[in-house]
């Protein structure tokens, strides 16, 4: 309990998404709007699925605990399906917006590409999902209490934070992959995203057997991350370019090749400008323009 747990869990759960927001989204107003609209769509899906669950609960016998639990599990899966439906709906909305823009402007590009929108939309879903899962728990962790006093697990907070982090990242990756699949009309991709989401939700049903839920979820997160990276245009070449970029302080000149961050789907280096990085000593790089 207390501040240490609060800050620790808050940073675990929201640190990466906050960093992603600050570094990639905060500067561009259009992306902020798309992020908040993505959060809104996730919220809508949650609202509808809660409505369905609520009706089911009210229509059933409230004393029967197994039935209630069964209904909750049904609620979980239904909510997952509805989230994916709303992700698709958001994709359609964004496509219309992009088409509108592209139709009006002369040059090919609109202000924001579909890949960027995919990333931002995924992040919006992830942030909202994480916030709704975690914020009440965080606020409870600030107050007095004993974790697991009735025999539940003592690791509640930390596992909640880890699960939230995994889900946020997963939503981001799923957003990228999903939109890419919709763009290229690869319906197996969509089916894969839906089944992965169902799988992750199903794995969370194993809680509090955390060994059964957390490691597999993180494996899935990593795998989906790799998939999203390659799906959005990343390649091993760009990865190696990133790795050989040594020294955070050597951003001396702006003529160096733009190295794509693995999550920003804009990996093409500027044509006609290459620079070679020669490591001369550990941590020191010299650069040679070619």
């Amino acid at each position, binding site marked *: 309990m207390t501040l240490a747990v609060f800050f620790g869990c808050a940073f675990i759960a929201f640190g990466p998404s906050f960093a992603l927001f600050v570094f990639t989204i905060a500067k561009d107003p259009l992306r902020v709007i798309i992020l908040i609209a993505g959060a809104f769509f996730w919220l809508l899906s949650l*609202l509808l699925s809660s409505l369905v669950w609520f009706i089911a609960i009210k229509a059933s016998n409230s004393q029967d605990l197994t039935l209630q639990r069964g209904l909750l599990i049904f609620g979980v899966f239904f909510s997952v399906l509805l989230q994916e439906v709303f992700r698709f709906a958001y994709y359609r909305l964004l496509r219309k917006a992009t088409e509108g*823009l592209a139709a*009006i*402007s*002369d040059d090919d590009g609109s202000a924001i590409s579909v890949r960027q929108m995919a990333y931002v939309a995924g992040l919006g879903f992830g942030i909202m999902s994480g*916030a*709704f899962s975690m914020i009440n728990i965080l606020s409870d962790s600030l107050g007095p209490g004993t974790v697991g006093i009735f025999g539940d697990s003592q690791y509640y907070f930390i596992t909640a934070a880890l699960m939230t982090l995994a*889900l946020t990242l997963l939503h981001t990756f799923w957003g990228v992959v999903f939109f890419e699949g919709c763009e290229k009309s690869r319906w197996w991709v969509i089916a894969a995203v839906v089944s992965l989401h169902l799988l992750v939700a199903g794995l969370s049903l194993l*809680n509090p057997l955390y060994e059964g839920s957390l490691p597999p979820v993180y494996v899935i997160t990593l795998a989906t991350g790799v998939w999203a990276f390659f799906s959005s245009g990343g390649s091993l070449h760009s990865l190696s370019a990133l790795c050989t970029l040594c020294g955070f302080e050597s951003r001396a000149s702006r003529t160096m090749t733009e190295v794509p961050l693995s999550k920003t789907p804009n990996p093409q280096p500027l044509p006609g400008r290459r620079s070679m990085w020669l490591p001369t000593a550990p941590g020191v790089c010299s650069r040679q323009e070619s």
Partner: protein
Amino acid sequence: MNTSDSEEDSYNERSALVQCESPTIPSYHQDHDMSLPQETDTKRGRPVSSGLDEPGLVERERAATPDGEEEELTLKYGAKHVIMLFIPVTLCMVVVVATIKSVSFYTEKTSQQLIYTPFKEDPNSVGQRLLYSLLNTIVMISVIVVMTIILVVLYKYRCYKFIHGWLILSSLMLLFWFSFMYLGEVFKTYNVAMDYPTLAMIIWNFGVVGMICIHWKGPLRLQQAYLIVISALMALIFIKYLPEWSAWVILAAISIYDLIAVLCPKGPLRMLVETAQERNEPIFPALIYSSAMVWMVGMADSNNPDSADERQRNEGGALAQEGVESEDDVALGGRRRCSAEEDLEEDRGVKLGLGDFIFYSVLVGKAAANGGDWNTTLACFVAILIGLCLTLLLLAIFKKALPALPISITFGLVFYFSTDNLVRPFMDSLAAHQYYI
């Protein structure tokens, strides 16, 4: 005992969504809400709408950019304007929610009520509670309507000094009395010992600087900060003194009133706008949050002080009769000069009336006050932001004055009640079992 009238003085906020006018455009749509001057009662902010000056923007850009980029620039500017409004609205809500969650004074229900909500709700009987909240709403809305009409009449007959005097009186009330109360409660919550001389000095400085910034000249950021602070203070007063159910019904009723007042041909707000347009005056610059900024940069030096002065004074809302006309001419002249020289800088900024801030914050604050569920607060927050975004989008599409409150408040109310009753039990059950969706 009912709270005194003077507390209501600060209701003279206006909610409006207006864009700074570009002098090259002779006609523009501008809506604003009004502050109702108070004779005996309080003023009330009126939610109004704004007009985005799209033709002006496109016109100015047409010279410089190829045809296709206009819309893209419009979209970029539109997005930037939305963000320029998101940030202050978010800040105001954050201040209100933080206060509600930490200072218990604003959530303690007392028997005191505002005189505009004279009927006391009885928590035991649902029917009577509903009836009394409806009656309270009717009383409050009629007060607002009457005040708006009085304001329009005063404006029509050019009683600017009177209006200005009331505005000054109400900001005095807000900046000194309400902030004194607020500070006192914060000190009580955190058990901070404070002596009266120090407190007097703090409040005096805060208040005087606020009056200067808001009504005269001051750095833009400081003025914006003060406007946000007084909106938050006003919202907190509403949250404390409006009875539970009455507050929700009032929120709904205000949005409907806003819709009617702005869109109907005989609506008071619309008449006010048209009168201001006929006279070619900026509409009540006082108590409108302005984010106008960057077009100051890059201006020739000789123009700088003038334009800065004019703009600030416009924002400050000097409504003395002579003051309005002369400053308007100079302002127009100054702006014309500036925009002619400005070929790189874009923004004309956006103005949003304080009534919008206040009602958004009231909604989110009440969501935060009830039950301590953060999901509800977050849902209302997102809903309001999306409503604001949609309102601006509709403005860009229709290019005519639209009210700023209805969409946001509707979304906010829908999301509040549904999240509180449907989503909360769902998420609580999920959290209890640690299931993740």
